């Protein structure tokens, strides 16, 4: 992770922001798992982003759901940048590519994203 992009100040912060924005709605534990950034660090970064008004969070059960604030001044531009940075971060992109987020009928087997690039 040490050689990663530091567009948003540090590698960890950049990875957390890219994942959070790309996923559109997520929660800190998921971000920590996908970015390989410790959960406490993710929570601290999300707290900072929320204080700046870039993301908003709400509780769903005991889970803190985080989204980019849709009315933040540069929300669209930030998303475009995050998606571009995601393409330049192969390991994070691979982690997101392996995530199935669409619903699955109960009883259906799981799909697997292949590890070989076409």
């Amino acid at each position: 992770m040490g050689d990663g992009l530091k567009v948003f100040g540090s590698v960890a912060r950049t990875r957390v922001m890219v994942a959070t924005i790309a996923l559109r709605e997520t929660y800190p534990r998921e971000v920590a798992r996908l970015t390989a950034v410790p959960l406490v660090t993710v929570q601290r970064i999300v707290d900072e982003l929320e204080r700046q008004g870039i993301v908003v969070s709400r509780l769903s059960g005991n889970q803190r759901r985080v989204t980019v604030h849709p009315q933040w001044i540069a929300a669209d531009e930030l998303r475009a940048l995050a998606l571009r940075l995601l393409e330049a971060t192969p390991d994070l992109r691979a982690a997101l590519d392996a995530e199935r987020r669409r619903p699955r009928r109960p009883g259906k087997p799981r799909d697997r994203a292949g590890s070989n690039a076409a």
Partner: protein
Amino acid sequence: MIGPEATLREVAFAVGTALDREGAHAVLCGGSAATFYAPEVYQSEDLDFVLTFGADDGPVARQALESLGYRFKNGMFFHDASHFTVEFPRGPLAVGNVLVTKTETVREGDRVLHVVSATDVVRDRLHKYAAWDDFSALRAAIGVALEVPVDLDAIHDFMRREGVGVFEKRFDEAFRVFERRVRERRL
């Protein structure tokens, strides 16, 4: 013969041929069709066939599957020697709000398989990415587009038509991300 080493493609041909011989017209679709075109990129564990002609095809399809050793349980077919399950989602065959009327028929020797076109597979996967932020679907769409020729203009038109109202931005973004990664050959 369906065995533990059979790939999705082999199972698809076995099932497709058995269905065809019984007179049931069924089309491979969904994630299994993506795997058919790009097996190295996306591995579906189940095969979805949509029966496209007549309500009478149901019992015929069951007979065809049972002749291959499949047994019906909880709405899908299981095989003792293979982890690939087979299911017949309710039709009509459609991608988003668009009915699919033109499909591909692939023949290998005396085996036959009806499958949705690669362009329709990409449409279907991109639709899922746009609707659910499902990056695995995006990867499948890119994988298929890098593996076989697809009609990018038709895919763009489809995404424009599907992404109306509040979804316009989402669908437009999904296509742009897909197109860029295909252009850069960045899976």
